[in-house]
């Protein structure tokens, strides 16, 4: 039986939007999300800007308290964890952010950056910490001597390696990768993606891989979840989702993807308009105003996730 490291149960985060003292409305940034991340797997999370990806990640990292629902770590809800267990959770769940120019403190040397999770979350002595820093730097393809440099001495790709080294330092089980390669050049991106795959094979890490580029998500993930306006509309095994996307939104995302090759027929973008404001989401299915296959009922009843193939769930009235 594989361990489920991170799971959420009807996880919800609402933000009040205020002008002065008056509440103008509620943004349902994350609205009832259930997901599970198992040992050694990569779950790809896809969605356009404003769909609540970042809020979801912040909830998973315990950087924001949920409005409703819970995040659980190895089966225990986060609020119920003791101080000691919470430390264990922070050690085991580590983030890597998109931009390595803003995620590394320019005034800290690499050894301080990389050892910070060790100093905060473990009780290792300074010699052990230094040894661990050298070890993780080598793991990500840098030199142990790079520990004495500052971030500005590295290129963008190398900085992202430092960010990955920092995440690996405390021997985590889960990495939360928020657009971790989006800002990198093509040739560097391939290096980092291969590195992440190697590290996963070596240590049995679980990844939550967030990206907007479907080709990259397909390359990395075992399962894919698609998010739209605070909800997950489709989840399934990568091959199943890519070969036969069921939700009209997922289909539209694939159609909007740029071709691998100029000889592929270009599909014109079926999807018109833009993502509505989460302040005032449409009633019923949130996708219905843009959906090319919307039924009359779509504007009334909100569809629930339904399993249509093994491990493949879709929230759409068509199924």
């Amino acid at each position, binding site marked *: 039986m594989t361990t489920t490291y991170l799971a959420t149960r009807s996880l919800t985060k609402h933000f009040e939007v205020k002008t002065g003292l008056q509440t103008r409305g509620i943004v349902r940034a994350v609205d009832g999300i259930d997901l599970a991340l198992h040992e050694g797997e990569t779950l790809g999370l896809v969605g*356009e800007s404003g769909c609540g990806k970042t809020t979801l990640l912040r909830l998973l990292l315990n950087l924001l308290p949920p409005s409703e629902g819970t995040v659980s770590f190895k089966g225990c809800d986060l609020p119920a964890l003791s101080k000691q267990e919470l430390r264990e959770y922070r050690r085991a769940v580590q983030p890597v952010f998109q931009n390595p120019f803003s995620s590394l403190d320019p005034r800290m040397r690499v050894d301080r950056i990389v050892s910070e999770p060790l100093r905060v979350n473990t009780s290792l002595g300074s010699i052990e910490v230094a040894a661990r820093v050298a070890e993780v730097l080598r793991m990500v393809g840098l030199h142990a001597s790079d520990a004495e440099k500052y971030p500005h001495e590295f290129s963008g790709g190398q900085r992202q390696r430092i960010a990955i080294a920092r995440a690996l330092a405390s021997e985590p089980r889960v990495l939360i990768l928020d657009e971790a390669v989006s800002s990198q050049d093509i040739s*560097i991106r391939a290096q980092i993606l291969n590195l992440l795959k190697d590290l996963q094979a070596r240590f049995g890490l679980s990844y939550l891989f967030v990206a907007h*580029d479907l080709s990259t998500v397909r390359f990395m993930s075992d399962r894919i979840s698609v998010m739209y306006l605070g909800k997950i509309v489709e989840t399934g095994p990568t091959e199943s989702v890519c070969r036969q996307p069921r939700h009209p939104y997922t289909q539209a995302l*694939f159609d909007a993807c740029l*071709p*691998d*090759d100029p000889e592929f027929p270009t599909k014109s973008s079926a999807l018109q308009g*833009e993502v509505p404001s989460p302040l005032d989401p449409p009633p019923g299915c949130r996708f219905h105003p843009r959906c090319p296959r919307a039924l009359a009922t779509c504007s009334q009843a909100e569809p629930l996730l339904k399993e249509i193939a093994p491990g493949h769930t879709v929230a759409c009235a068509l199924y």
Partner: protein
Amino acid sequence: MNAPMLQVRNLTVGLKRHGQVLRLVDGISFDVQAGETLGIVGESGSGKSTTALALMRLTPRSTWPHTSGQVLFDGHDILLMEEDRLRAMRGRDISMVLQDPMASLNPVFTVGKQIEEAFAVHNLCAKAERRSLAIEALRRVRIATPEQRVDDYPHQMSGGMKQRVVGAIALACQPRLLIADEPTTSLDVTIQAQYLDLLKDIQRESGMSMVFITHDFGVVARMCDRVCVLYAGQIVESAPVRTIFKNPAHWYTRALLDSVPQLHTKAERLISIAGTPPQADSRSRGCRFASRCTNAQARCLIEPPPLQEIAANHSALCWYPRESATS
């Protein structure tokens, strides 16, 4: 066949840094025919944005003493043109769309006013007509209810809409050449697809030429007729778009294509290029890609490679181009 609309000949743009002239763009040449879309692909630091700016002589003044070559638009050299004449051309004959719409728009004016500016600068119509022309320009880029949107400020619009407004400004005077520097990089995938479709449609209606600067081969495959691949300031390969994808002659082009994950086939690993692109101040004497090339020979490290004609319209800057491309 008519002479190309834009001819770039041996364009070099340099910058003096610590007493040393760094060549950001180093002797590149290409043509753009009327109605065609040329893609310029490269990684960051390859000189693609500098090239875009140089085409309209918008490069910083500090680079001017180290700029040479020719940028011929209809046979007139933009690099030597008087300031007045150039100003009359910018935005009217040649126009530009940049990556970040927020940085291109002024937050304190309505989008209508900013579009009207294009007509005012070029003195194209009576003052009273400008507003209706601005509404027309917004309609051309498919903004719904342009009569109302014309009075919006940029912050009232979404990212995709702002980029459309930037497009409306660039296309206001119906230019014959549009230079687009990563116009969709900051947009979401579905919005990106809409925007690219829009540019294609406008091109079909007006017959304008485009120079598309991008790092994304998907954009190239979707938009371009011909492609120049830029590496460390040089064009290392130029060919029709199908040739670039099916049968590239340069090892860099091949490696770059291999390092992109494919949407339609699942790979276990990507073939990545070792190392990083060289900085402008530490390029090798020979081929600039040699240190990362899987096929580099002794000669590649010492002697600069020649530009070899592989086929008609297909050339590569390489001593030993890929065999399959030559046969």
